């Protein structure tokens, strides 16, 4: 892939050939890294460097419409000096201006331009795909040599292109996949953690690297990594995990241990909503349990506050020995707190008309999550636990 892209760009610069290509791969598969790498290699070749390869870099997230994108291209191509102090006119003028500029060149004389479109899929949503059409059109006609490279993670990108845009695209797609297996993954892990040779404190680097070597052979560490690998092959998540672990390193604790990694892994995989549940009061937990029971009884149908309150009342009357019988407004308040934490979500926007008690709601927690959270909840009254565990709520 690297050689393919390099070859492609080299031809653009050296022969003045116009091209277009798409680099497609899931997030974190190194699309941008690949491109940057190729560009770096390219710049090291004399022949290419002298040809002054300009590359406007556009990101679909920044250039949200063609107008902005055009301005950005103009800026990056340093054409404003031609425009001078002229106030940049309308979009139409702008487009005409840029097209004129690009039309002026020809294959042999003008220096090639490399357009990089990051988040290519977002450019597709621009009106009429004007920008893409024009870029591809230039790349298909004898004008300034242009290479258009799009980076995207969408596999179905070609279906998004309009038919005439698609026809102008050269259908050169470079797929990047995280196709490595677990052994390679471990290698990457080692490489990432190892200190480079230039590290000033050599003895420490030696020690550290040895430690990393040991870690990579450690069963516990391998388990952690295996787990992560099973979840995602994205290297960024590996970086994230290592970052968490390495930040535990201090002067007194100079070397990374397996425990650190396990801790980091635990942090990484912890459930955000369940974490929130840990911080709730007993009353709020009770309400959530009531909702859970409602969900089980009515099979996921939405509920409202009144139903939850009734359920809660039943529990208080029958079973609760340790629970204080709260008044309705207090329960309401607790309920609204849950609403704010987005543990429950209203089905529709609350309107001024509808009474809040009867607003239809939905629980955003799975029953498993609730049970897990209850297990670790500190000082949970046993009757509440029992109530939660019992499948028949009224008993």
């Amino acid at each position, binding site marked *: 892939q690297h050689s393919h892209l390099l*070859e492609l760009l080299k031809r653009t610069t050296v*022969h*003045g050939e116009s091209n277009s290509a798409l680099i497609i791969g*899931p997030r974190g598969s190194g699309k941008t890294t690949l491109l940057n790498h190729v560009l770096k290699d390219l710049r090291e070749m004399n022949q290419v460097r002298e*040809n002054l390869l300009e590359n406007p870099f556009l990101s679909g997230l920044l250039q949200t419409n063609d107008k902005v994108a055009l301005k950005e291209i103009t800026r990056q191509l340093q054409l404003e000096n031609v425009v001078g102090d002229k106030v940049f006119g309308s979009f139409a003028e702008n487009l005409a201006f840029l097209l004129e500029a690009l039309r002026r060149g020809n294959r042999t004389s003008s220096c090639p331009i490399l357009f990089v479109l990051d988040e290519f899929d977002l450019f597709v949503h621009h009106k009429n795909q004007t920008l893409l059409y024009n870029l591809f059109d230039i790349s298909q006609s*004898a004008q*300034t040599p242009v290479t258009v490279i799009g980076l995207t993670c969408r596999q179905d990108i070609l279906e998004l292109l309009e038919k005439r845009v698609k026809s102008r695209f050269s259908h050169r*797609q470079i797929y990047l996949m995280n196709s490595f297996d677990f052994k390679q993954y471990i290698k990457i892990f080692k490489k990432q953690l190892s200190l480079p040779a230039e590290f000033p404190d050599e003895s420490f680097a030696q020690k550290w690297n040895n430690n990393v070597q040991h870690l990579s052979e450690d069963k516990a560490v391998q388990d952690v990594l295996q787990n992560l690998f099973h979840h995602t092959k994205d290297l960024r998540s590996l970086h994230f995990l290592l970052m968490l672990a390495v930040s535990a390193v201090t002067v007194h604790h100079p070397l990374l241990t397996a425990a650190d990694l396990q801790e980091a892994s635990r942090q990484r995989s912890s459930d955000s909503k369940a974490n929130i549940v840990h911080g709730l009061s007993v009353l709020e937990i009770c309400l959530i349990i009531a909702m859970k029971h409602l969900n089980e009884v009515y099979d996921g149908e939405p509920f409202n506050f009144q139903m939850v309150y009734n359920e809660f009342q039943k529990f208080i009357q029958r079973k609760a020995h340790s629970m204080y019988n709260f008044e309705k407004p207090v329960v309401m308040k607790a309920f609204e707190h849950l609403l704010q934490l987005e543990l429950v979500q209203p089905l529709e926007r609350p309107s001024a008309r509808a009474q809040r008690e009867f607003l239809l709601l939905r629980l955003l927690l799975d029953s498993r999550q609730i049970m897990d959270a209850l297990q670790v909840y500190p000082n949970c009254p046993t009757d509440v636990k029992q109530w939660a565990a019992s499948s028949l709520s009224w008993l």
Partner: protein
Amino acid sequence: MNTRQQSKRTYSWYGKPLSSDRKLRTSQYKGILITSESTKTETCIQLGDFVLVEGMNADQPYVAQLMDLYEDGAQHKHAVVQWFCRLEEIPQNKRKLLKREISAQEVFFDQILGYDTDIAAETIIKSIMVLPLHLGEELPIITLNKEQTFYVKQSWDGKCFKALSPDTFSKLKEANKKRGVITNSSKAFIPSDILTPVKKETESVLRSATKPKNVDMEIESKHSASKSSLAKERHSQRVANNDIKTPTARKKLELNSPGRSKGRLLGCEVLGLLDDDCDAIAPLVPSATKRKVKFTSDILGSPPKIPHSNDKSKSTSETAEHHLRFSDTIRLTPYTKVKDFSEKDKNLCEKGDILSSVGYQEPSSQSPVLTPRSRRTCAQKTSALIAEQISMLDQEDILSGSDSSYSLSSEEEEDDDEVPRTPEKKTKSSRIFSTPKSSRKSAVHTPAKTLKKTPSQGTPRTPRNATPEIPRRIQAAQEPASVLEEARLRLHVSAIPESLPCREEEFQDIYNFVESKLIDGTGGCMYISGVPGTGKTATVHEVIRCLQQAAENDELPPFQFVEINGMKLTDPHQAYVQILEFLTGQKVTATHAAVLLAKLFSTPGPKRKTTVLIVDELDLLWTRKQNVMYNLFDWPTQKHSKLIILAIANTMDLPERIMMNRVASRLGLTRMSFQPYTYKQLQQIISSRLKGVKAFEEDAVQLVSRKVAALSGDARRCLDICRRATEICELARQKRTPEIVRMAHVTEAIDEMFSSPYVNAIRNASLHEQIFLKAILAEFRRAGVEEATVQQIYQHHVALCRMEGLQSPTVSEVMAICSRLGACRLLLVEASNKYLHMRVRLNLGQDDVMYALREE
């Protein structure tokens, strides 16, 4: 100009009919009265006068000389004219035949036969002046009345420029003289109409005018009198200045004594802006000494090293400074031969002083003021010097310079009272302009640029016209070295083949259509449809190219060619702007452009050329009211439009589908559809492109064309595959040495282009992602609906994990997996704020997923 046009005018004959033709029931008149209602001005135009005629471009009316006026039987007023042709009307590619810079005020004696010389009298706007000049002469500098004065030097017959024949020259002159005599009968509402002709005449003898390289010119000139207005406020003074300077600027190489002067009508109707009385005469008594001057104008590349001829600048005011500089440069060129200048220099200075003082005797009140100033102007020698160097360097520089002075002079007038500018030190290296401050604005910032491009108007180049350019590459592009590279170059879509194979029939049809319309001089529409990559645009362009060639060879009437592309417009209404810009070079807003175009196409225009308009990607010009399309297709139906439209779009039934009835009916029934290429045609295209290059196996080409033809018939795709195949081949060659592209390479390229990415993507996904997909399948099977919430899938997922003996993931992790798959568009997911209730759908068939997962 615009407002004048818009105001209503009434036309009536002047005088009695001169003669009348019974048979034709026409009666001829010697003049016409034009009464403008808004300004209550009445102007009389007589035979032989020069007039402006309404053209298609409101800002650029045609120039013509009135030859005949008559009224036909139907009471229509007609005029027969001799056309003059502006620079703008001459095709771009012919302009370079001129080999010199043309100012906006210059027109050409039109000898093209094709134009209708019989026009409706109502199209005449007003009278103007057209002055004949000899080829080598500089344009007189006239700051006032710029719009109304033109100069003619050469004639244009559609092919080449010729110097005016002596016959026409004298005729034109005659007409001018006559004009000068005519007392203007306008009821002077605006005094500006009053002529204050400065009578001067030059007797120019062109010794060898035909030789452009060494034109030795001796021109006698005489100033006799300059009538200038007596109302001697600044204005009139300026006017006088101008009048004096004009002759000098005209390369009058000799200033003669007044005794020999002959009246020459100076082409400026002096617009005394405020003064209403203009009978004062400021007799010009230029320096009596006759200076015989031989002028060797080195037009082409005289050596940059020029002996300085110091000269006097006796400009009495800043206004003159410019004109003077140019005049000086020419006047003093003879002294290039002379080695010693200093004396003459002084001489000149004195003379200059004399001239100025004499010249301004009449406006005596001014002269004391002026004289000291004129002394000071000696300091301006240097500036003039520099200008001279420039002029000697390149004739064109003068011209461009004089262009700039045109635009400047008016401005200069305003800083009349400024002290003469400090001249900058003279630079010998004449390439580098260190122009004095006074000419700071001169369009010549970078000399090299202006030499090539004359500003079409006298105004300095605005940034609007700035032509952006991609920087040149330092190294030349490498030429293809091997057979494969050569092949790849030829296979690039941009490579223009000599002929378009397999589209001969369509080509012929379109060609015939346009040709017939061109010959008839009528308008029409043609709708061309076809899927992308079937050569619609290429064919149409080829047709246009052939037609243009034919037009050049005089087989067809000339035509204008305009192309717009719906995709390259930001808004359908921008189409108007682009068309107008192509046709006339104006830049206006969309609504205004629409109005102008409608007017242009609906009114009969003299010497209107047929316009061929290509509308690419027509469907993008669709608007809710469809007024753009309506207008586009309405114009050709107008009687006088002479507009041929070739509309290109992808869908065959576009007129029926999206157009309203009235638009579709205007589009007419001339349709053509480009069928997708068959594999044989594709094969032919490739082989025609590869003619002479042995890079492909026969079978390989056939495979590609069959594959593409089966899919889409898109020639672009076909070429791309071939190109990719050569790359693969080249890569493979590094190991072994297959010299041509074989089947294997082509197959690889095709696989690369057409392979579905999904299966591959799923196989490379992580374990949990695959489990998640399995869970989705399980949920779909359970529910029987191809849609599920994450909560439901999560339960399946956990169950599956348990089966596999894996640690079950938390909800957050599952959500992360889900969004990752969603980003790849393996799944279609809802906005993620619904969390567990987010609905998920597969973006590919269940079978595909199963197939991909089973392989493991």
